[in-house]
């Protein structure tokens, strides 16, 4: 399907496809096995100007938007969703600065990100996942500084990133309205990393704890105002969720590409299995589902880029639909591979393992349904249709 991409977007797609073919696919299986972080691929992405894609030109970026980011994430994920996450996780980590950063903060951090400095976003805690209101990490103001205490868990790019955007409570008595967003740099005294998780999928991605013990940061590192932490976090998710959708579309497309190739070569009963209707119907359904998800993801991304005010529902829909689709499609891809789909020598099972996380992170799909339903009901009761 033709999505009427701009000349520059087609250029981005071709560039990312080349990186995926030449640099990601050859190492994907190995990094999946070793759980090694893909520093060399990150460097290739950085040298190709891709970390600047979503950053304003005045800060050394390319001035692109969410659709550009989605195109890149989708292409990388076609090769390896774990490697793609080093890239997409940086976009998530820098979003709070793009959304709420003042001129000084933008001038200080964005040029570094545009050159390939990795970022990470820290909201989840052991006791605060879907219920982010249960955040225990605190930030206490003392003179010109804030003192952070607490632990974040499951943080993508944890330990590998240099710049972290972190939610901490500045006033616990105010509940969600007492949360604030801070920039914390790696190397700040009192900021260390806990255990690195061993995961089912996206194993080339680093997922790690962030530990703050009397971590002292300058007050200039507060993003927006005190108490705006959750608002900034929600706006961050509005911007980033189409990216998860794009990752899911890429994973699904990668598994379909592999399944199609296999079905054409695998001979049973004297014919390639692609000549059997049972396989053909599966391939046709997979391709159709992927296309529908891609259309929704791109539409949601375009809405954000066009400056539409309320994108919460469509962002949630893009993430929800694409990730559920990816899970179904990758399971079917394993089925087409038959016994070979179940063993690690072939790529199908990895796509299936990688797909699962897209239904869980950046808000489980149950939370996405809550968001969508709440928005539907509120719209109806306010009389605006």
């Amino acid at each position, binding site marked *: 399907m033709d999505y009427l991409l701009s000349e520059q977007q087609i*250029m*981005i797609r071709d*560039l990312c496809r080349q*990186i995926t073919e030449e*640099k990601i696919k050859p190492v994907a299986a190995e990094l999946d096995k070793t759980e090694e972080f893909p520093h060399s691929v990150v460097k290739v992405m950085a*040298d*190709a*100007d891709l970390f600047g894609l979503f950053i304003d030109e005045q800060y050394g970026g*390319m001035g692109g938007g969410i659709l550009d980011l989605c195109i890149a994430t989708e292409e990388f994920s076609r090769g390896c969703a774990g490697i793609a996450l080093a890239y997409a996780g940086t976009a998530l980590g820098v979003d709070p600065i793009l959304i709420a950063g003042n001129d000084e903060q933008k001038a200080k951090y964005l040029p570094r990100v545009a050159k390939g400095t990795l970022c990470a976003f820290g909201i989840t805690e052991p006791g605060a996942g879907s219920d982010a209101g249960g955040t225990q990490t605190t930030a206490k103001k003392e003179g010109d500084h804030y003192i952070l205490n607490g632990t974040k868990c499951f943080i993508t790019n944890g330990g590998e990133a240099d710049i972290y955007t972190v939610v901490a409570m500045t006033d616990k008595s105010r509940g969600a309205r007492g949360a604030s967003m801070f920039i914390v740099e790696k190397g700040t005294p009192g900021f260390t990393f806990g255990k690195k998780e061993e995961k089912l999928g996206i194993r080339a991605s680093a997922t790690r704890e962030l530990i703050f013990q009397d971590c002292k940061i300058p007050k200039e590192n507060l993003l927006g105002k005190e108490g705006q932490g959750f608002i900034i976090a929600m706006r961050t998710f509005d911007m980033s969720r189409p990216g998860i959708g794009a990752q899911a579309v890429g994973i699904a497309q990668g598994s379909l590409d592999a399944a199609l190739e296999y079905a054409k070569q695998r001979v049973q009963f004297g014919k390639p299995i692609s000549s059997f209707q049972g396989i053909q119907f599966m391939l046709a359904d997979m391709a159709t589902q992927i296309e529908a998800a891609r259309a929704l993801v791109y539409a949601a991304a375009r809405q954000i880029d066009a400056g539409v005010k309320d994108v919460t529902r469509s962002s949630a829909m893009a993430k929800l639909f694409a990730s559920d689709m990816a899970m179904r499609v990758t399971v079917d891809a394993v089925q087409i591979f038959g016994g070979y789909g179940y063993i690690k020598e072939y790529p199908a099972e990895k796509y299936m393992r990688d797909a699962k996380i897209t239904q869980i992170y950046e808000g489980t799909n149950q939370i996405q349904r809550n968001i969508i339903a709440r928005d539907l009901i509120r719209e109806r009761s306010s009389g605006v249709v």
Partner: protein
Amino acid sequence: MNIVVCIKQVPDTTQVRIDPVTNTLIREGVQSIINPFDVYAIEEGVRLKERFGGKVTVITMGPPQAEAVLRESISMGCDEGVLVSDRAFAGSDTLATGYTLARAINKIKDVDMIICGKQASDGDTAQVGPGIATQLDIPQVTYVKKIEEIANGKAKIERMTEEGFEIVETSMPCLITVVKEINEPRIPSLKGRMAAKKAVILAWKAIDLDIEENRLGLTGSPTWVSKIFTPPPRPKGQMFEGDPEESATNLVDLLKNHIG
């Protein structure tokens, strides 16, 4: 440093087909690419510029559509592209091509180093690079795998041999042809690709060059391709069974009969 990189547009080697009647390449429907060895030449040129400063001019001789490979070179970091293209050049063999390119390079003043790929993937002659150096009367170093240092108008260079490598010191300007061991070519960046799209490609015809007409194209080409074919597979040899003495006798008899 003022660097010139010579490149050639070739059909994607994975899809080469020969017209059995005319013995020429079938270009229809075949994707054209930069000769794979020339990509290493481009990368080396850009790396030298990044190390020593200066400018990289990329030059190709070919039909108008060869402009595409010049743009791709610019996306990798070359500064300027020159397309040497004229009907008068059609049918050039390696001698005429070397002559024409040498005249074009002569038009670019004060060149310090010319870099070529070791050979083209379609013709496989490895003659054009050395031909250019001969026409320009400058030193040449072929099969280069490393440029060790460049200082005081001299270059210290490692060249591959079948047994190992040689270290050669040459004065500059010089011409080198490079092998794929010399570097790992970069993937053109987004900014590079955008610059390449906008770049103005210079087009030089025969009249733009200080050139002798009878040395161009078919007229200037003492060689031509009479036939291109895939050699038939070697027929199976005859094995002699039995003890060595008997086998040797049988072999000698057979050879005698064969000679007559």
